[in-house]
């Protein structure tokens, strides 16, 4: 599990996509830039009637569940990862494709444009050596082949940004291809470790009420190889990616204003993920949790506050938005004896898009000698710009 801001609130996703309508104003001669989306503005009453709900665990099988689940309001394919080019030049990347159902059923119409499916995608590349962080977004409706998803063969795409099954990684491998004007990410991915079912056999509860939950699994360590284009540089790269798959219909509980999410791939073969659902007073919701995965892929859940804890060690103020984000942390897992220091690859990894958040690559090392292995990871911070992601 990772995107609490997205994951727990498919209704918000839907509204976010709907908010694509509200894009547009920009300078007269420059490339058009979408205006800011106000989360508060796109939040509202959410009617879940007619949609499938995540109420109890269900079998999750591949490749079928790699495909779309249109009966649920919201769904995403979320890939992040750390890469290295020749000579150890580090990169971070993110490609997320969001799907939303705008209505429980597809409208009946003679027009092939008629659909209840909408897609949004974010593509980002962190290139600290060039001092560059590039982020782009796209929208499309799930019609006319502009965007869509299928399980067999696996194919998820928006325009020419796509995630497809197969490739050099074998039948269960994937290829990722996405590019915009000055950035390209092209990777062949292997599954790596087995699938980790999050929460209760893949049912991840987000709040106290039944249905306040999602179906959710991860591939926590996918070997990746390919190339990136950053500005004018084309670099062959290799590294590890993390795939989150999640679909749901329900919403986050009241009182949550944002979240901090951490996913680390450690050099000793262990992976760890933890998130904190932040409430208005800064405290963590009881539904905050985490997981550790051993080198063989065996996962053990973590309870926030006892099994896993995070302290903030620094802060950064965005020159683009003026929003102040945490920057630098110490993550503690007492059961493994880890006190891990997390430092962003670059301070500025803010996605200043229609929906504004910070999502960035971090380096990991033990705080002191013997207090944990080195590694790489990704951190996501939402709800810091004054627009609380929940009501």
């Amino acid at each position, binding site marked *: 599990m990772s995107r609490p801001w997205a994951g727990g609130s498919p209704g918000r996703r839907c509204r976010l*996509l709907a908010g694509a*309508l509200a*894009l*547009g104003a920009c300078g007269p001669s420059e490339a058009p830039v979408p205006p800011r989306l106000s989360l508060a503005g796109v939040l509202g009453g959410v009617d879940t009637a007619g949609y499938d709900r995540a109420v109890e665990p269900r079998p999750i099988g591949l490749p079928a569940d790699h495909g779309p689940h249109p009966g649920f309001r919201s769904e995403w394919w979320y890939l992040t990862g750390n890469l290295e080019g020749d000579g150890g030049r580090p990169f971070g990347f993110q490609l997320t494709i969001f799907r939303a159902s705008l209505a429980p059923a597809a409208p009946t119409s003679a027009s092939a444009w008629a*659909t209840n499916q909408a897609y949004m995608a974010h593509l980002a590349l962190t290139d600290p050596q060039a001092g560059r962080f590039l982020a782009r977004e796209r929208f499309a409706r799930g019609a*006319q082949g*502009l965007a869509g998803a299928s399980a067999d063969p696996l194919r998820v*795409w928006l325009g020419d940004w796509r995630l497809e099954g197969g490739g050099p990684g074998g039948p269960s491998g994937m290829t990722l291809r996405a590019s*915009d*004007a000055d950035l390209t990410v092209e990777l062949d991915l292997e599954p790596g470790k087995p699938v980790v079912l999050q929460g209760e056999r893949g049912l991840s509860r987000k709040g106290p009420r039944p249905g306040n939950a999602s179906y959710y699994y991860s591939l926590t360590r996918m070997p990746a190889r390919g190339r990136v284009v950053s500005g004018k540089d084309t670099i062959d790269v290799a590294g590890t990616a993390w795939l989150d798959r999640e679909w749901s219909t329900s919403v986050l509980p009241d009182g949550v204003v944002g979240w901090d999410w951490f996913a680390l791939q450690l050099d000793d073969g262990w992976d760890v993920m933890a998130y904190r659902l932040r409430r208005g007073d800064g405290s963590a919701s009881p539904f905050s949790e985490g997981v550790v995965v051993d080198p063989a892929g065996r996962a053990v859940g973590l309870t926030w506050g006892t099994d896993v804890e995070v302290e903030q060690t620094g802060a950064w103020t965005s020159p683009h938005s003026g929003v102040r984000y945490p920057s630098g942390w110490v993550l503690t897992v007492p059961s493994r004896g880890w006190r891990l220091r997390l430092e962003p690859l670059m301070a500025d990894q803010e996605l200043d898009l229609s929906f504004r958040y910070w999502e960035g690559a971090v380096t990991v090392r033990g705080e002191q000698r013997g207090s944990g292995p080195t590694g790489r990871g990704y951190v996501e911070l939402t709800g810091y710009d004054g627009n609380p992601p929940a009501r």
Partner: protein
Amino acid sequence: MSLLRRSSARYHLQHPTQLALTALGVALGVAVVVAVHLAVRSSRAAFRASVETVAGRATHVVTPASGGLDERLIRHIRVDLGIDRAAPIVEGYATSAALPGRVLRVLGVDPFSEAPFRAWAVDGSVGLDVARFVTAADGVMLPAGTAAGAGVRAGDTLPVSVNGRPWTLRVAGLVDPKDALTSEGVRDLLLVDIATAQTILGMTGRLSRIDLWLPDDEAGRQELARVRSVLPPDARLEPAGARADVLRGMIDAFDLNLTALSLLALIFGMFLVYNAMTFSVVRRREMLGGLRALGVTRRQIVGIVLAEAALIGGVGAVLGTLLGVGLGRGLVGMVLRTVNDLWLVVSVERLTLPPVALSGGVLLGILATLVASLPPAVEAATSPPRLARMRSTLEERARRMVPRAAALGSISAVAGVALVGLSTHSLGVSFAALFLLVLGLALLTPLATVVLIGVLRPVASWAGGLLGTMASRGVVTTLSRTAPAVAALVVALSVTVGLGVMIDSFRGTLTRWLDATLQADLYVSLPSVLASRADGTLDPVVVEALIAHPAVEGHSTYRSRDLRLGDRLVRLVAVELDRRGEAGFDFVRTVGDRTFDRFRTGDGVLVSEPLAYRMRLSVEDGLELPTPDGVSRLRVLGVFRDYGSDQGVVMMSRSAFDRLFRDTGVTSLGLFLAPGVDLARVVSELEARVASVGDQAVLVRPTAALREGSLQVFERTFRVTAVLRMLALIVAFVGVLSALMALELERARELGVLRSIGLTPGQVWGLVTTQTGLLGFVAGILSLPIGVVLSIVMIEVINRRSFGWSLDLGVGAAVLAQAVALALVAALLAGLYPAWRMSRASPAAALRGE
């Protein structure tokens, strides 16, 4: 104020009538120019707002040559080429019972593609439920103002009719753009989801266009080339502005015609000024001569006269500009109505008042006044100081000028005619030629006046005795005053005659053409939003039901759509003609007897006269048509007369059309009935049949009704011209009035002498009105041949080059009689005041002179 200025100011203040009429002349001329300019500008601004607001920020646009684009093209561009900033658009027109009389533009968009293009669409949107907008098949967003007009709010339903079919849309939100221009541009716009648009507009599977945003750099140029490589043969990729240019090009000729007409009005105004200033100079010759003797330089004299002119012109121009704004308000509606009737729907009706145009109007007025006053000013300055008092010398000079003016006039007129002959298609040159011709003819009027008065003198003498002789001789002996007056009158009157004859000729030609063309007994079409063109598709079951009626013996079908030919947007019409319908073609040229045999087999096309003119096509020429399968070269089999579209019509047989364009729809039908059936009964039976087979409402109209409707559109489109003609008449009237009144007032002394030797007041009336009447009559008579010449130029040159139509000249007696009557009435009226004053004043006072 210097003494010289004080002196000239006092002179004018002592002649307030003159002053007022001169200023009025300037004012009217300026008013017409300003009004037309504002109306044209406003209609263009409206056009711009309408087209460009909807076009949004697209840099390029892909459009179909005809029909629509295959919607799958968008996937090629977005997915295969990875060009994200491409938005599909489906457009059309609708009407709504909630907004009677308004044409609503339907803009179907994919909200998820809109971000880079149309910020206004949602910038100010209120209460929009986007999910519902996209997923419900009936969501519509409309401008707040339009919603208020329809009395609907978010959540309410809005009934609309498209192609005769009723639809109920639900208001998903309101558009309320912040900036005024966009706000104007979205007026009467229905924003719907693209799926909704395809459904209600009957465009399933097709797009009206694809908007692109491509950066202006190397990458953008590469993307452009890649887009071009995936386009089907009948699609065009061009800069967004180019498409607006094509649309704008359609109304250019119309605007140019209006502007030229308004400039004619200004020229009348200048003639009035010239006349008035010449008059005031002539009248003050002795005084000016005295000043010269005292050592006032020529330059100072010119300065004095021009300063007077500038002041009068300034006052007139300011008045005229104000008047023009008021007039413009009236005109803009008419201009827009014409634009809407003939070309495209523009739904802004606000008068744009650019300060530049206003100050420009004032400047133009002053400048025109100065130009018109230059000859009298120079005249005043160049005459030798003391000789100036010798009136006979002046008149002798004026008489000597007559043949010179006539020679110059002939040269100018010949140059005008030559210019027409030399240039073949340029409209600007044509107007220049027209102006030269007008000028030339005006310069010929003094000679014509002398000749005509010579002819009339015996009549006047016979009727009025010595007084009649005096009256007629006075015209010639005071030629320095009468010649400019008559010239001004003739110009103004002849232009009204010319316009009147042109409108008559057009109406006559159109009537004959309609009578010849409308061969069927009944015509079936969809209620159309554009008066001049049929659109949409008749439901096939409706067509079946209609032609199956026992009274229907035969039918012709028509399929009509836009076709881009190069930079032109023309009409493509596919016909399946009943034999009787073939007789309705009035060919200018054909390949011969077998025209229709060859046409039916798809061997070639027929083109309308305007198209043949614009594209310089003749029979047997090849015409390249863009079709979905590539360019198809077809032979021109005939050129037929058509007054339905000034852009041009390409007509092809149904079989060829179905093959080339793969479109089986029918836009309208002509039905031939069995002889002797009751027309009204058949119409109601056919209407009942239509109602029984579906929900499409169609118009079943007897030929007479269609003919009537077409003539109504004609009258509407010529309303602007008619108004301008009326204004010209008013200017002419004022001109006659002021010129002749001045003339008679100037004769006060002479009349005083006559009174003192025993002329009764009644005889003074007779003398004055005989003279003004003679002048008015002469001007009226002279204006007739000149007016007819002008109308020939307007019909054969201006009209042809503007619209490509050939019209049959039809000179109506009413127009001619009107000109003469107007001149006479104005002339007699002009005599009233001076006659009244003269007959009332004591002769002694008159003798004292100034």
